[in-house]
Structure formats: structure tokens, C-alpha cells
């Protein structure tokens, strides 16, 4: 399709040149070697004023040229005016503003106005930058213009630096290191302000005219089977006559195929769904972006008090911005509702997309009657007696330290006295019920794209306790007393978070989660679940330690209950041991990596990327191992080991239980004999049935679903969302951890502390196949309830005996 575009544009070019050449005469000046002159394709024009009279002499003034008369001869200016994003809502930008670079106003016109003087061309970035922000594609080192802050007023027709002022992005191919600005770590910033500018893309490459035939693919063809329909192009002349000046905004995906790269990203598609490209590709902005503007006060220069994001704001406004120390700020990542039309076209199906923003908080004096900001001229009259000279009563009120000057720290409405003073003054000027209003506005960040090789985003930037997606946002260092700002009505992202006024006067946006229903692995946590899991785990550990301690104490009293030489029997077959230890290793590594992934930022055994990969690989090994061992147990019949239930099972289980809580301390023999036919005691049987049939499948399934969310979104996407899969998987892992510690502890309850572990390694276990003692046999013969009663009685009695004995000792 791109080939078609190229082909068509060539045809278009040929046709237009064919179309134009016979009707025009090449002016002699174009024969000169000046190659820049040849860059314009536009034929020469006769410049007419509003009365259709040719401008031939006098002092040149661009305003005398009538675009309707001059341009309107060939182009349908009426159509352009009505189809023009720059010609509505109070904005009136005409042909000349964008298509003629630097008109030589004031020069004397001799014979006529040569077209060379006024070169008509497609808008260059500088042309767009005249209004939109700092643009510099020249070789002059980039600097902040002197009028950068002086133009923030409501006056129209002046230069505005909107985009740069509000977001800090600068459109320039130059390297940051080569700029005239004072940037932190400047000598290492060897990358351009914007890669697209550096790669020679101009503004109109992405902001193209609405009926640009090259991009007609974006407009839906009436023929559903066509993505690109060349029949949209009526004729090249049509486009030249009626260019639709509603400038389009191309998406990153118009040119880029993000899914073809980003292979380093786990959950590639998920990331693309959840994040806009700029969220990662604009990691930091060094340009002079506003953080807050306090328009309730005026500095000596007669401008509001500005605070910059990512800058040392200790310097007063008077210093030039080029010497201000900019450290750069990280754009604020906030969820933004995704439009439905976009949904259909792109691959994501989420309701929200996280995008970078800059938030600018502004305080105004407003009139209670009109609810509009008070004009700055009125404030100037209040604050100043003469330009650069504060009024005496202002100094009296604001000068806290009585040095006759208003320092930058004092220029703040931080007391009721100051506020009511200004309020009174405003009333005198005829403002009804003046009040202070604070508004937070959001500015999306679309430019300032980083050089990829200089991006140092890591997983832990977001997937960690301290995440870019959950950090508190500083809205303003200072604020007028008692005024809490509110979100503006056209605030784009979701308004989540709490606006907090800190003790030191700072205003912050407190947020813990990004909102939008995201679960960010490593950052998001279900707190109660974590707490519960941790408590269960701690209880297990404490119980084990207590048990072990008691065993140790009593081992002196009841030592070597049975010391006869034990015979060795081969009990665990080779494969049994192999699968056991493979399982053990896998679970151990899964636990370690899992803990790290869950608590990124707190615990680190590996680097996060490796931890995630290891976790996935070991999970795979575990699943394969489990399947193979299931097969083994089935074909050998060993599976019966888990299901040996007879009518004595319950009794045996109780005996085993009492053994663990009582008999073991006395050095009593195991109540249930371990034989090669019956390797597991009743309690083990129950535990393993639960572990292998419930917990393991649960954990494997939840894990596979989390892993598969990227691979088979169609299957998993609908009913398995990370937001509850992750906590469930997490719950399972807590239980697994508990099993692990208890299991390991219970291996020490064999004949010696390590005999069971040794048996599981070598396969040879000590055969303690003595007959069940008479005592045990008697218990087994009792009725169930009697047996339990006897056991409890014996335990209590013996304990009493013990305590009595100890008492007599003392």
C-alpha cells in the first residue's frame, strides 16, 4: 500500500507540474544557483490587496495582502476557511501566516513584489512553531526565547509557546548536550530533543490535510473489502483547489508496527493495550514546562509567579530561563478513556489506556459575578505604583521580614490578611465578590520522543512498589492559603487520586493505583491477602519452632527410646526420587522468583527480567514433571499409595495426630508403620491428596492463565483478568510456602533428624518394621470415641505427672 502512496504522489507531482508549467513563466531569479529558491513548487503570484489592486510600491506590509483576492484566484478560500482547524473557535490563521516564511515587513517595494520575496511553501516546523512551541531546526544552539514567559496572557495575535510551555516538549533535531540551556548531566545528553525532528520529519508529515490522498487509507471506503481506495482522489486539481485544512493527527501506528519489535517485553500485546507509545518513549522531558502558575500575585516583572516542572525553582523569575537549572521531569502517567472508534481499529480492547500528561495548576482571582478571571491589568494597578515598583501598601502587607523588599518567598497569598487586603482592593476596582480559584489542567504529551538507544526504562520503573504509575504527584510547591485546586472541566485523564495540602504548603495528588482497573504485577497488591498469607506463614514457622524446641527439650529426658541397629530397605525407587527432587527444586526457585516478582523493589534475588523468565521456565518444568510423575504413578499402580483408605483410617489418622502433638516428645514410636506398600501415613495421604489435586492444579491453572493472557487473549481475556488472577495465584503461593516449611520440618521426625532426607536421596530407608506395640494395638481395638478419650486422658495425666515431677525437683 505504501508503494501505491509513493506511486500516487509521484503521479500527482508529475500532473501538477505538467498542469502548471505551460501557464506560468519562470521568473529569471529562479535561474540563480540559490538552491533554496528552487524548493518552492508554487508558481509566481500577483499580490493583490483587498480591492484586487496589485501591490507594486510603497512600504511593504504583509497585512495589505488580501488572501481572498490573491490566493482565492486559484484556491477555494471559502472552502478552506470552513474546513480549517486553524480558523475556528476564535483562532484566525490565514494562508500567509502558515505558507509564507518571514515576510520582509517594512522594506521598500520597487517595481513589483517578486514572488521570491514571499516564498510560498508548505508550512515548515518553524512556521508551526511560531504559535505552538519552541521549534529549532537551525544550527544555532537551542535556547529559550526571551519572550517565553511574557506571552502567556490572553492577548491574541502574539507569539504563544503553548505546547512547550505546558508540556516542555521541544521540537528540534539538535542534541540536548548542544543546547544553550542549563541541563542536569548535560554533557551526557547526546540525543535529540525529538527523534522525529532529528529524522527530518516535519510537522505536516503527521498533521496532514484531511483529504491528503496519501492517507486516504484512514478514511473508510464505501467498499468494505478495500482498505485503500484510489477512487477517493477525484483529481489532483481538486485537492489543490480545496485542501481540507482540518489537520489530521496521525497515530504512531500509522507509520510504526510496534508489535514487530518490542520482543524483549513480556506481555507485549498487554503492554500495547494498556499503554500509549509515549508512556515509555517519553521517559523524561527537559524543556521548560510549567507545573503551576500563581496568577493571584505579580512579580516585579509584572508577570505571574511561575513554577517549573523538573527545574530548580529557587531562582526567582527574574533570572533568564536559559540559566535556570533544569533537571527534567518524568511525565505523569494517567489512565485515559479510550474512544470506541479507536478500539475497533487497534488491537487493544481495554477501556483505558495509560498516557503521559503534564498537570498545570493555576490560581486566579475570579469575579464572583462573571466567574471569569480578573484581568491582569487590574491586578497590575493594584500591585504596582509604577512599572517595576510595588505600591507602598503592597510592600507593607507582603514584606514579612520588614526589609523593604518583597522576596520571592514572600510573594504569596499565605495569610488571611494578604487575601482580604487584595480582595478589598479588587472590590474597589469594581470586581464583585472576588475569590481565588485553583484549576488543574491536563496536557497530553505527544512529542519529545526519545532516541530509543538512550531510553533506560526498566521493568521496575512500573512493576515495583515505587512505581511511576502510583507515585504521588507534586502539583505545586506553594499555594494561596486555604485554596484547594480542582480539576478543570476538560481534564482529559481519569480524575483519580486525592488532592492533599501537605504541612509545608505543597499541594500533591495522592494516588496509590493508576485507576482504570489495572493490576500491575509487582506494584499492585491485595493488602488483606498479603497480610493474611504472611500471618499464616508466620504461624506455621512459629508453630514449627515451638514444636522443634519442645522436641529438643524432651530429647534429654526420653533419649534413645529405641536404639537397635536398624535394617536398611530400598524404599524410594530411582524415578520417585528424581521426580521428587525436580519438583522440590522447581518449587523452591518458583518461590524465590515469585516473591521477587510480587515484592519488586523490596526483595531482589535476580534482576527482574530474569526472575520473570526463570519463573515461567521453572513453571513449565514443574508442569511437565507433574504430568510425567502422574503417568508413572498410574502405570506402576503407585498411585494407590495415596488412596489407602480402610476402616481403620480415621483411627490411624487420630493416632498420628496425637503422635505429632504428644508422642513424638516422649520418643514414642511412629503409630503407623511405614512399609514399602504403605509409605505415607494417613495425615500425609490427606495432605498430598489436597496438595496434588487441589492446590497444585489451582496454582498451575492460574499461572497458565496469567501466562496465556498474552498468547491466547481470546480464550483467557474474557473471563480471566489479571486483576483477580494475580491475587488468586498469590494466595496459592502463600499456601505452597506453608506446605513447604511444614513438609521440610516433618522430614526431621524420622529416626534421626536427617534420615528421611537421606532416604529420599539414596532410596534406602531404615526398616523399623517391628510389631505394633501392645499399647497401640489396644488403642486400635477400642471404639473410636473411647480411643480419643483415652489418648486425651493419657496426655493430660502425663503432663500433670511431668509438672508434678518438676515441682518436686525445685
Amino acid at each position, binding site marked *: 500500500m505504501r508503494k501505491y502512496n509513493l506511486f500516487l504522489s509521484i503521479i500527482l507531482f508529475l500532473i501538477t507540474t505538467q498542469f502548471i508549467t505551460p501557464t506560468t513563466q519562470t521568473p529569471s531569479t529562479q535561474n540563480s544557483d540559490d*538552491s533554496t529558491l528552487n524548493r518552492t513548487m508554487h508558481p509566481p503570484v500577483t499580490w493583490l490587496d483587498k480591492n484586487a489592486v496589485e501591490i507594486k510600491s510603497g512600504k511593504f506590509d504583509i497585512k495589505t495582502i488580501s488572501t481572498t483576492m490573491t490566493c482565492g484566484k486559484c484556491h477555494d478560500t471559502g472552502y478552506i476557511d470552513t474546513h480549517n482547524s486553524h480558523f475556528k473557535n476564535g483562532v484566525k490563521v490565514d494562508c500567509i501566516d502558515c505558507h509564507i516564511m518571514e515576510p520582509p515587513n517594512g522594506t521598500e517595494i520597487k517595481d513589483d513584489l517578486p514572488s521570491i520575496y514571499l516564498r510560498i511553501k508548505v508550512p515548515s516546523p518553524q512556521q508551526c512553531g511560531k504559535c505552538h512551541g519552541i521549534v529549532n*531546526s*537551525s*544550527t544555532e544552539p537551542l535556547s529559550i526565547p526571551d519572550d517565553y514567559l511574557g506571552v502567556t496572557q490572553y492577548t491574541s495575535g502574539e507569539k504563544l509557546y503553548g505546547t512547550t510551555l505546558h508540556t516542555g516538549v521541544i521540537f528540534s*533535531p*539538535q*542534541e540536548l*548536550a548542544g543546547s544553550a540551556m542549563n541541563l542536569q548531566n548535560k554533557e551526557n545528553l*547526546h540525543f*535529540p530533543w525529538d527523534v522525529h*525532528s*532529528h*529524522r*527530518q520529519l516535519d510537522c505536516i508529515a503527521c498533521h496532514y490535510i484531511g483529504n491528503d490522498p496519501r492517507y486516504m487509507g484512514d478514511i473508510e471506503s464505501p467498499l468494505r473489502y478495500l482498505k485503500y481506495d484510489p477512487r477517493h482522489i477525484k483529481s489532483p486539481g481538486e485537492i489543490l483547489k480545496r485542501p481540507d485544512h482540518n489537520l489530521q493527527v496521525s497515530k504512531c501506528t500509522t507509520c510504526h508496527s510496534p508489535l514487530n519489535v518490542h*520482543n*524483549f517485553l513480556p506481555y507485549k500485546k498487554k503492554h500495547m493495550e494498556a499503554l500509549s507509545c509515549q508512556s515509555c518513549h517519553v521517559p523524561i522531558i527537559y524543556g521548560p514546562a510549567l507545573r503551576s502558575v500563581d496568577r493571584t500575585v505579580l512579580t516585579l516583572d509584572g508577570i505571574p509567579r511561575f513554577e517549573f516542572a523538573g527545574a530548580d525553582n529557587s531562582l526567582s523569575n527574574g533570572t533568564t530561563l536559559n540559566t535556570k537549572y533544569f533537571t527534567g521531569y518524568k511525565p505523569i502517567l494517567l489512565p485515559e478513556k479510550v474512544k470506541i472508534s479507536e478500539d475497533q481499529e487497534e488491537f487493544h480492547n481495554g477501556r483505558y489506556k495509560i498516557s503521559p500528561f503534564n498537570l498545570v495548576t493555576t490560581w486566579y482571582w475570579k469575579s464572583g459575578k462573571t466567574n471569569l478571571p480578573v484581568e491582569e491589568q487590574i491586578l497590575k494597578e493594584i500591585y504596582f505604583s509604577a512599572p517595576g515598583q510595588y505600591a507602598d501598601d503592597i510592600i507593607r502587607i507582603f514584606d514579612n521580614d520588614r526589609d523593604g523588599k518583597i522576596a520571592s518567598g514572600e510573594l504569596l497569598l499565605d495569610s488571611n490578611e494578604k487575601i482580604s487586603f487584595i480582595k478589598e482592593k479588587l472590590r474597589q476596582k469594581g470586581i464583585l465578590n472576588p475569590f481565588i480559584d485553583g484549576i488543574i489542567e491536563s496536557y497530553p504529551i505527544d512529542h519529545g520522543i526519545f532516541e530509543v*538507544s538512550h531510553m533506560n526504562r526498566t521493568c521496575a520503573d512500573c512493576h515495583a512498589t515505587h512505581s511511576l504509575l502510583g507515585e504521588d504527584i507534586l502539583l505545586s510547591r506553594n499555594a494561596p492559603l486555604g485554596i484547594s485546586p480542582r480539576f478543570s472541566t476538560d481534564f482529559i485523564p481519569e480524575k483519580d487520586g486525592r488532592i492533599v495540602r501537605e504541612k509545608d504548603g505543597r499541594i500533591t495528588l495522592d494516588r496509590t493505583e493508576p485507576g482504570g482497573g489495572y493490576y500491575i504485577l509487582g506494584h499492585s497488591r491485595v493488602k488483606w491477602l498479603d497480610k493474611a498469607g504472611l500471618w499464616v506463614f508466620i504461624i506455621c514457622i512459629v508453630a514449627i519452632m515451638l514444636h522443634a524446641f519442645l522436641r529438643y527439650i524432651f530429647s534429654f529426658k526420653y533419649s534413645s527410646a529405641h536404639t537397635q541397629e536398624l535394617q536398611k530397605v530400598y524404599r524410594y525407587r*530411582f524415578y520417585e*526420587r*528424581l521426580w521428587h*527432587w*525436580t519438583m522440590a*527444586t*522447581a518449587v523452591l526457585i518458583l518461590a524465590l522468583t515469585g516473591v521477587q516478582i510480587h515484592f519488586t523493589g523490596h526483595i531482589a534475588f535476580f534482576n527482574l*527480567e*530474569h526472575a520473570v*523468565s*526463570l519463573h*515461567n*521456565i*521453572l513453571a*513449565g*518444568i514443574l508442569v511437565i514433571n507433574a504430568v510425567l510423575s502422574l503417568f508413572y504413578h498410574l502405570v506402576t499402580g503407585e498411585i494407590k499409595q495415596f488412596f489407602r483408605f480402610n476402616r481403620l483410617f480415621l483411627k490411624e489418622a487420630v493416632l498420628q495426630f496425637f503422635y505429632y502433638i504428644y508422642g513424638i516428645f516422649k520418643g514414642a514410636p511412629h503409630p503407623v508403620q511405614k512399609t514399602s506398600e504403605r509409605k505415607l501415613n494417613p495425615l500425609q495421604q490427606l495432605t498430598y491428596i489436597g496438595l496434588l489435586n487441589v492446590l497444585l492444579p489451582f496454582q498451575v491453572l492460574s499461572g497458565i492463565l496469567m501466562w496465556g493472557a498474552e498468547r491466547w487473549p481470546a480464550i483467557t481475556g474474557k473471563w480471566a483478568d489479571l486483576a483477580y488472577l494475580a491475587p488468586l495465584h498469590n494466595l496459592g503461593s502463600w499456601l505452597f510456602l506453608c506446605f513447604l516449611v511444614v513438609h521440610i520440618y516433618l522430614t526431621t521426625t524420622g529416626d534421626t533428624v536427617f534420615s528421611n532426607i537421606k532416604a529420599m*536421596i*539414596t*532410596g534406602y530407608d531404615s526398616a523399623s518394621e517391628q510389631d505394633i506395640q501392645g499399647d497401640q494395638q489396644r488403642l486400635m481395638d477400642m471404639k473410636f470415641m473411647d480411643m480419643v478419650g483415652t489418648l486425651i486422658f493419657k496426655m493430660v495425666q502425663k503432663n500433670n505427672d511431668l509438672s508434678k515431677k518438676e515441682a518436686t525437683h525445685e
Partner: protein
Amino acid sequence: MRKFKYHWVIGALIMIISIALSVWLFMPKDSTKAMKDPWASVIKTRHHLDHARFFTQPFKKPQDVTKACLQCHPQAAKDMMKTVHWKWEGDPVKIPGHKDPMRIGKKNLVNNFCLGITGNWPSCTSCHAGYGWENSSFDFTKEENVDCLICHDWSGTYAKGPSGYPREGVDLLASAQKVGYPRRDNCGICHIYGGGGMGVKHGDLDNTLVNPSENLDIHMGKFNFLCVDCHKTTNHNIKGKAYSVSVNHENGIFCTDCHDAVPHRDSRINTHLSSVACQTCHIPLVAKKAPTKTDWDWSKAGDSSRTDDTHTYLKIKGEFIYKKNLRPEYTWFNLTTDRYILGDKIDPSKVVYINKPIGDITDPTALIWPFKIHRAKQPYDMVNNFLLVPNLSGEGGYWHDFDWEKALQQGGINTGMNFSGKYGFADTEMHWPLSHMVAPSTQALKCNDCHGDHSIMNWKELGYDGDPEKYGGRITNNKIKNPEGV
């Protein structure tokens, strides 16, 4: 028979191997291809033997030092005498426009600085690695006349004067006691000061490279390279080619001797390799700390009313322009040059190229290279239309009598040229391809330096239709001619 007790070890091994293998298989790997390690071909350490104890008696003549050296290094002079540093001429090569292969070198060539050594031996041969080249009858076979110290002196006190003899006051014993492998200042004595002053000739070689910073030259600055680290030397034959005296790249050095042939991570940059030399981007500027001579007008010489200044005017030499932070000029170059040979006819209405680089956009072996171009006005014979080498120094020379006619007459005799008696000054250009002063990668040229509105390249002059970013490169536009004509 007792059963093997440790067969569980086999199980443990199976387990470890299967886990390790699957981790190794499935762990995401860094997909970037391993690059050639540039350090693999760099000599890490050099051995140096303190020679102080070998020499105790003062030397009477410099030749005595050489003889002393040859006692232990008998092959050294023989090897040295086979090289261009001694012969000042190379093996026979084919020169475009000339039928038979010819031996060329400093010995017989003309340049546009001090014009030529013929007849000016005493001053020019102060850079000859030998003693006593005073006239055309110098004996190139005498081993004792080889000057070892000029390249091996570490005392820093050794200096050469007319005809290559040590200057008066040089302590030969002190120098001999402190000999070692050649360091940057050793090579620099001639290669930095060539042309009669610091930085006159090369542009990318001047005294600031003796102790350079990282920004000046990454190899010598950051990694403290010596000249001989790249100009690798075996048996006194030093690798490398200077296009002021050569016409091809035999025995030359390439960046790719150490660096990977496809060295960038960004494939867009790598596509440039088919048309752009490494040096073009990586040597964005030369003469970064000290200026280099770019223009030399001999026709203005001899004016005693003007005050002498090394960098603007000297009565004996004429008018100069020196430039600092010089942006190179770019042209196609296939590593061979044309060469002006004494006697070649010139067209005085046009610029005479002393060593025009061969290659253009159609030449698949040519790349866009950076050059320092030295422009001069130098004497030529208006009747015969060829360049002349005047006699400058000594009795009857121009620097003595300031009489061009006499100097050219005598020069004509020395060089065997038939000077008609009528002379003029022709515009000449000499091309110096640049390979030193390699900047750190952060300072290399970037996209917008060549592409876009502020390009440093003159694309039309290079043969493109326009900025190749918009018009396509020479491959897309089928501009390359197949040399076989297939």
C-alpha cells in the same frame, strides 16, 4: 557384589542438567549479534629494555650511535633501508596517464607546500631518517647513515637539522641511553611538523595529539594509543599509506582491521556503509585544538614591506590562511588517486590537482570521504605549461635572493626540467584524506548534519539529484556502474 551406592548422583545430575538445559533454552537472550572485539588486534603490552647501561662513552658522530646499535641489532639497518622512510620512494606503480610503472615518493614528487625536495635537500632532508642527504649523490647503501634515534629517542632532546644531521648541542649519549619503541612524539617530529611548521600539512595531525584528550582523538586520548598500535610495524616496515606520496592503499590500514565491518546497532546507519567512509561521520572536525594551513599563496612572497607572521604572511613563503575546527570537504574516493608528476602538462586556467582522489558516485568501490584540501598558488612555466620546483634554500635560492627567475632556473637544472624563463602562478589543490582525530561517538555526525535544511554535504556536487533522504541513494537510483559492464 555390593550395589553401587551413589547411583543417586546420576539422578541429581539428570535433574540439574534437565533444569539447566531448559533454562538455557528458554531464557530470552540478547539477540544482538556479537561484534568483533576491537581489542583482539591491539598489542596490550610492550617490552622496554633500559639501554642506559650499554652506553657509557660519549659519541663523536651520530654515525657512531648507529654503529653501536647495529652491534646488537644487525638486521635493523638492512630492514630499515628497504622502507620508504629511508628510500623516500616506493615500489613502481602505475600512475593514471603514464604508460610505464614508476617509482614515486618524496624524493621526486612535487607538492603545493614547499613544492619539492629536489634542489632543496638540506632543508627537506632534516626529516629523513638518515644522515647526510645533501644532494642527489647521497649514498643510500651506507648502513651507518641510518638515523635510529629520530624514531627511538625517549629523552625528548634529540632534534635534527639540515641534511638530517643532529642539531648542534644534541647530547647523543643521553639520547642513546634512553631509547625505546617509537612513541607519538617520535613519529610526530616529522609527521606533525611536516611542511615547515606545526599542523601545516595533515590537518588531522598536530602537536596536540602528543598528549590528547578524549574529545580530540578517542584512540590516542581515551585509550592512549601509540601511532604504531594501528601503524603496525614488522621489520621496520610501518603499515599505512599517505596519499601525499602514494596513489593506492597497498599496505594500508582500515578501520575494519580492528572494528566490525557492520559496527552499528542501528541498521539505518549501517546502510550508509555502502557509500560513506567511517571517517566521514567519525571525524566531524579536524584541527580541533590548533589551526592547520588551508591556503598558501606563493605569488605574494618577497614583499619586505609586510610584517612576518607565521600564520598569515612570511616574506620567504608568501601568504597563508590557517583554519581551526575545520569542517572537512567531502568527495568520492576509491582509495586510489591520480598524481601530478613533474613534467605533466597543466591547464593554468583551471585548478591543477596534485593528487586528485579517484572515484565518483558511479564507482561501487568509492565512498564519500572527508578531506582537508590545501589550496595554493605555485609557480609554473607559462610556455611549457608545467609546474616548476624552484631552488629555495642555499646559494641562489629564492629564500636567499628573492629572485623567482633565478630560483626557477636553478630548480629547472636540478629537476632536469626545461624552464622557458616565463613563469606564472597556478592554482593547485592537494587532497589529504583524514583518518586521525576520531571523535567520541557522541560527537559523530548525526542524521540532520547531512540531511535536511542545514546539510554540510553538497549533494548535487557529489552526483546526487538532491538530499538522498528525499531522492534516494545511489543504489536505489541505479547510479552505480558495474565495473565489468555486465
